[in-house]
């Protein structure tokens, strides 16, 4: 940036830099976008010392509340505070409406796809999605064939990762249809920001998010057919893998907010295809399980035998229709990173509509021509393992070493189905308060979609931040943080 442009930035933006990426706050050097104007003015008038104090107070309150996640690959049970940044990310209402419509369309189509794949498989017969792609997916569950799920809802909860491209449009980066997490941080961030910027928050007219837990409970209850067991209210529980899971805080938080029991596998048992929980007053029947345990670990009789997190016999109870699971088993095929390339076609096939939200160009490495192209351009592309999440198993071409590229080249050639490649995206950047000043960092957005009686999105989501300078990886396990997301009412 030329010196003249730099001078246009005043503290705390003195060292703020724009580059090729879309900047959420500034449309030009020193010129904020209209919906960021008020925040910009507030920050100019705010002594850095005060911001620092607020940040410390926020960090301390996260620590005391134990809003932590567990880092794997480290000493077991290492708890870390999820870093939170105090500058909100602001989304104008018209942009949000597009996101909302786009995600509603997407979850509807993906849900129809799952129902189809596990029943007649029309889309496979018609050759829109290759049969072998579905059947070779690690998350395809043969056991689900022909099983009818209540209301035909496979995906009750979905967290979709969106990125903003340099032209300012949002694109879907990936869908999380198995056990999407992070929503508790969305709610925790909001609570903190309301304390730090009360007046600004009120004046901005921000859509509330606090009703998320209630909406989720409604979604879960919708799964239980009325009077299924001759009782009025279904018993809903949240199944957690336990205290060592990285998202344990979230599980306790959601259970508390919804007012339902948080159970572990050892609290449940199946007798005569009915699921019970072990209470001090004896056994109590369970109707709906919101599960945060992966398919593989749900039932040692049916899936992984070495699982101690699951409930023996759970799948049979599920097949018998005596218990509902959210999300359903086998939804992982629809968020397989290779299948992702077919989502636009899936939307057109079932809904006869064009996708509202763009997708990112994806190279399928099972295709020879595409594979060769990718292998030649490994230094420019991002390679991802199809079944992984959390930022594990990734190669970011431009930031990789020759050895890493060689390693991925061999892995790809050994198992082409296991990887996909995408262009390195320039994620949009937003100001974060770091080292006493505002600095630009890459961000994404994960809104949460609920599919019950109808599709609901709580306006907002988790804005994840790559806190390391220049980093493009926003995952909490890889040095990411988060910030509050303000969707404006008008």
């Amino acid at each position: 940036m030329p010196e003249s442009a730099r001078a246009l930035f005043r503290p705390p933006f003195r060292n703020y830099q724009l580059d090729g990426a879309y900047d959420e706050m500034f449309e030009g050097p020193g010129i904020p976008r209209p919906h960021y104007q008020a925040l910009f003015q507030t920050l100019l008038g705010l002594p850095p010392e005060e911001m620092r104090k607020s940040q410390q107070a926020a960090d301390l309150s996260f620590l005391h509340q134990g809003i932590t996640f567990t880092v794997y690959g480290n000493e077991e049970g290492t708890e870390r505070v999820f870093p939170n940044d105090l500058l909100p990310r602001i989304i104008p209402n018209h942009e949000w409406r597009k996101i909302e419509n786009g995600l509603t369309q997407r979850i509807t189509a993906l849900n129809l796809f799952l129902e189809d794949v596990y029943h007649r498989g029309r889309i496979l017969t018609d050759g829109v999605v290759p049969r072998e792609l579905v059947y070779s997916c690690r998350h395809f569950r043969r056991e689900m064939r022909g099983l009818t799920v209540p209301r035909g809802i496979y995906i009750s909860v979905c967290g979709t990762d969106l990125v903003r491209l340099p032209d300012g449009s949002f694109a879907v980066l990936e869908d999380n249809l198995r056990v999407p997490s992070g929503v508790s941080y969305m709610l925790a961030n909001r609570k903190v920001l309301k304390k730090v910027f009360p007046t600004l928050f009120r004046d901005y007219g921000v859509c509330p998010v606090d009703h998320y837990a209630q909406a989720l409970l409604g979604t879960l209850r919708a799964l239980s057919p009325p009077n299924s067991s001759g009782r009025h209210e279904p018993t809903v529980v949240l199944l957690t893998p336990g205290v060592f899971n990285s998202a344990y805080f979230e599980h306790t938080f959601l259970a508390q907010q919804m007012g339902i029991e948080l159970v572990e596998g050892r609290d449940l048992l199946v007798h005569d295809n009915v699921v019970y929980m072990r209470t001090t007053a004896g056994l109590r029947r369970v109707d709906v399980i919101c599960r945060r345990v992966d398919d593989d670990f749900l039932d040692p009789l049916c899936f992984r035998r070495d699982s101690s997190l699951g409930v023996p016999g759970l799948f049979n109870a599920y097949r018998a229709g005596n218990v509902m699971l959210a999300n359903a088993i086998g939804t992982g095929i629809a968020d397989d990173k290779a299948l992702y390339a077919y989502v636009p076609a899936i939307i057109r096939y079932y809904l006869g509509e064009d996708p509202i939200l763009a997708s990112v160009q994806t190279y399928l490495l099972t295709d020879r021509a595409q594979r060769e192209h990718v292998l030649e351009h490994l230094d420019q592309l991002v390679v991802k393992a199809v079944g992984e999440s959390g930022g594990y198993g990734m190669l970011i071409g431009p930031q990789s070493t020759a050895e890493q590229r060689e390693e991925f080249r061999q892995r790809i050639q050994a198992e082409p189905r296991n990887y996909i490649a995408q262009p390195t995206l320039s994620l949009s950047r937003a100001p974060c308060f770091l080292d006493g000043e505002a600095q630009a960092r890459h961000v994404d957005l994960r809104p949460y979609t609920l599919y019950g009686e109808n599709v609901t999105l709580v306006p907002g989501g988790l804005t994840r931040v790559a806190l390391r300078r220049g980093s493009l990886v926003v995952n909490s396990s890889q040095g990411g943080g988060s910030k509050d997301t303000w969707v404006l009412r008008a």
Partner: protein
Amino acid sequence: MLSRVADSLYWMSRYLERAVHTARLLDVDFQLRLDQSPESSAGRWLRLLEASQAPAPADGKIDATTLTHILTLDKTNPSSIISCVAAARENLRQVREQCSSEMWEQLNRLYLQVNSTTSTEAWLLHSYVFFRAVQEGAHLFQGLTDSTMTHGEGWQYIQLGRFVERTDALARLIGPHFTRLHNSLDQAVESEEYLEWVGLLKSCAAFEAYCKTYTAEVRPLRVAEFLLLNPSFPHSVRFSVDMVHASLTAIGELTGRKAEQPVRLAGRLCANLSFSHIDEIMASGANAFVEGIRWQCAQVHNAIHQVYFDYPVESALAP
């Protein structure tokens, strides 16, 4: 309520009570040490280790620094303050959706505070500040529990854990005093011995309450009567046992289970303390009496476990 949750609340409460108890013992010891010769302190330290069920040093020698370290910050000793607070917090973390946010935050804060303490010479000199902080932190937690949590089943398990632990800890503390210091039971004691008896009372947070009841004249028989049989002092064995009984009765009603066993055992223990006279207890041996209390208390604990936490599924499925 889930059995696992009840189990965690019960143990969380027991561990916290254990931590406070140890902190109080060390606090009292710290003050006593200032008035005593090192020789007379050593005997008390060994008793302290025994009462805390901590491993005694192999050579039988102990000094104030080692004692303080073993009982406070030694993570290898499962009954040290740091281990107990960590265990209490871990138990609550597993059921944190069951308690109020205020409770969780307070226990988490106490844990972070204890966990960030390092044992230095300066710290050892002023360790009473730490003992006070642990006691106050736990009292604050107890207050928050009583004022922010529904006094339902979960709360009753917390009460239960607290008073089962207290009964056992009091019994362990009182017993040895009467085997080793049994001269002139019904006469006022003096000098070194006086300090020991006052120490015992203070270890049970009972000195001021004792003085209000019996004046400042310290007689072992009265001390025994006060700590074992007083019906309204919260750190007496009888009071603790009454609370255990009350909680078990409440839980029995709340769960609607036919849980005669725990209530019956606790009731018998209550009766034992309500209808005993201190002279009889002394005549038949205070230590044996106290051991009997501990044994019965362990039976109550086992019965709670079998009826509420870990019952056989077959019995629960039977109509």
